[in-house]
């Protein structure tokens, strides 16, 4: 359906470039806009102002600094594992972005088990974090790694269950289909807004966002990092570009999860199809949506990751046992209830 037919190699190249941009651009924007600026404003200061206008080049300065630093590994570390760990974390991010649809034709892959794939791939980062914590030969890192493993696995579950509600309602596990469904459905016959699942699946959305917060190890769920207790936990021993990779992965994953949340709950790249008279069944979406879609997605992602960061800057952190209790005793039962409710309503209507 693309306007021009590209040879396979060009498509591959485009995909790789697009994937890199889709990971790095949100990461950079989130770091600059939220970590540097919003956080500073919330703390009555201006943040970086020297590098570039309003400090906009600060990130490049930081990356340059990190690249110059020596790549250290502790003496007792399991060096091969230690060096691999950050890459594993970053790989998970890249794999995640592969299923995110940015427009009617602007996607990297489009397959039917998209939701399933996304949930499976997102837990690869747990492995990387555990590897980093274990191989660092540092007690703080070990504690951080173990905390991370426990936490990420605990919060995987409410995330899966929250997404399940969406899957039931949409009747598909294809992310592209979910987007189309949200934009072409109607709320009680009124299709002016489509049917973004944030309205019908609000509980699911809330649980998903809480789980995302935990998966990203952002405050109030940042015990694996916990700089005031564990001195950055599993990242303690890393320096130079390996630390940079962790850093990128943290914020890139925040961006990708925001993208996924906007796909699942906010209608993704689409605008309500009724506005332009598109037909979901035949897929007669105008081609310009391939350009507008990514912009819409990025906007939605910014809002969501802004909220993630806002919460991060405002809250203190939980204790490990409180966090586990919260996951198992509150989030999972609530999300199970949500699934039941969705299923009943789905059958009823």
């Amino acid at each position, binding site marked *: 359906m693309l306007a021009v037919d590209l040879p396979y190699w060009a498509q591959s190249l485009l995909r790789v470039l697009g994937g890199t941009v889709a990971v790095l651009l949100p990461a950079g924007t989130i770091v600059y806009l939220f970590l540097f600026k919003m956080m500073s404003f919330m703390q009555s200061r201006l943040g970086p102002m020297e590098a570039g206008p309003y400090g906009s080049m600060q990130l490049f300065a930081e990356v340059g600094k990190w690249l110059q630093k020596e790549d250290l590994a502790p003496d007792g570390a399991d060096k091969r594992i230690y060096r691999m760990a950050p890459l594993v974390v970053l790989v998970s991010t890249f794999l995640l972005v592969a299923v995110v649809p940015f427009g009617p034709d602007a996607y990297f892959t489009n397959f039917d088990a998209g939701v399933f794939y996304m949930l499976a791939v997102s837990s690869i980062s747990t492995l990387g974090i555990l590897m980093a914590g274990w191989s660092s030969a540092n007690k703080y890192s070990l*504690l951080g790694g173990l905390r991370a493993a426990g936490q990420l696995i605990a919060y995987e579950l409410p995330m899966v269950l929250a997404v399940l509600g969406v899957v039931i309602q949409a009747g598909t596990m294809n992310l592209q289909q979910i987007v189309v469904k949200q934009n072409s459905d109607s709320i009680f016959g009124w299709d002016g807004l489509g049917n973004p699942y944030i309205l019908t699946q609000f509980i699911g959305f809330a649980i998903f966002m809480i789980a995302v917060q935990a998966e990203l190890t952002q405050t109030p769920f940042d015990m694996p990092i916990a700089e*005031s207790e564990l*001195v950055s936990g599993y990242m303690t021993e890393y320096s130079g570009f390996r630390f940079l990779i962790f850093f990128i992965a943290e914020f890139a994953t925040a961006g990708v999860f925001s993208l996924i949340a906007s796909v699942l709950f906010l209608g993704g790249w689409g605008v309500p199809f009724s506005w332009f008279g598109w037909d979901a069944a035949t897929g007669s979406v105008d081609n310009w949506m391939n350009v507008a879609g990514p912009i819409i997605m990025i906007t939605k992602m910014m809002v969501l990751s802004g909220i993630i960061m806002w919460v991060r800057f405002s809250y*203190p952190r*939980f204790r490990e046992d409180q966090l586990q209790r919260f996951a198992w005793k509150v989030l999972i039962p609530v999300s199970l209830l949500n699934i039941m409710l969705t299923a009943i309503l789905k059958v009823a209507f």
Partner: protein
Amino acid sequence: MTDLADRQKLSYIAAQAADARLNVELETEGMTLNIGPQHPATHGTLRIIVRLDGEQVVWAEPSAGYMHRGYEKLTEVRTFPQVTALVNRIDWLGSFANEVPFILAAEKLMEIEAPPRAQWIRTILFELSRIANVGLFLGDLGVQLGAVTPVFMAFRDREHVLNLIEGATGGRFHPNFDRIGGLKDDLPAGWIAETKQVMKKLRNFCTEMEDLLFGNEIFQSRLRGIGVIPAEVAKQYGLSGANLRASGVDWDLRRDQSLPLAYDKVDWKVWTHPDGDSFARCWIRLQETRESTLIVDQLLDTMPSGPIMAKVPRIIKVPEGEAWVSTENPLGEMGYYVVSKGDLGPFRVKIRSASFNNISIVPWVLRGVYVPDVISILASLYFILGDIDR
């Protein structure tokens, strides 16, 4: 409130007991963790050696002395005015408050008393240093618990107080403004009006902290029922200040002794809390900061006019004798036991600093808690390294 705290305490204890049982069954090996000397939670160089079973502390021992400056020895080679410049470095966040008990002890030995205006200004500056100190505590508390924003707000509003202290004394951190017999100088013009403005900002800051931290459910669940110190234990270990009052002991040296300071001229209240847990300690400090702003406001309104210096000889020789004066400093009871032999300088000064006692309870209170609680309990006990090591 108490039933909530009780419930949390009980579930916490039950969880700990369950963990302990499991660990005995599994015969897990312990791990020794050095928290510090360079660690963000020790704001300074305190080292805490903890023996861990999983994340649970089996045994903990603070190891101080990384910053020992030997002030008690240094005072012996200095004259009385020189000692004043030295002692305000003990608790560097509330430095003016460190000078006052020493000066009062010397005045007691010389049997002179500062004129009323000097007493008023002393009291005001004393309370300002309390606000500067405890205000930073409130922000730092957030950092220890993982909230990054409060500390910047604390620094922002503490800056106003430091500016006031600097405006009056010339020193932001180390005023060295107190003299035997009075003060170095009177207040500069416009200071009173500015102080009133700042006190309003500080009350606003307290409200902000209440909203941002103390009302936060996560914050409460982290602190309530954690690190409970019963009153008897607190007294045995000589805990003082907010730590003691949080255990329900109604004891405040500003009220409970007669010193030539202006505390008995104002209407204020000593806050106590029955729980004795970390939350109580932090909560008391918040209330006291607000109370301090009110004290300062009242004192500014009633400031008498007159001289600020009593008649003292040009070269100060303190008569032979011994004197003990302690005051309610930001961290707790800070006292000097001054022995003079009629010389230019003191013969021996025993510095009783609050943090030394407050931290000596750490091995007792840290047993059986989790690693994150180590940090929150330490933060709530509130110590300044210079005040431990002197």
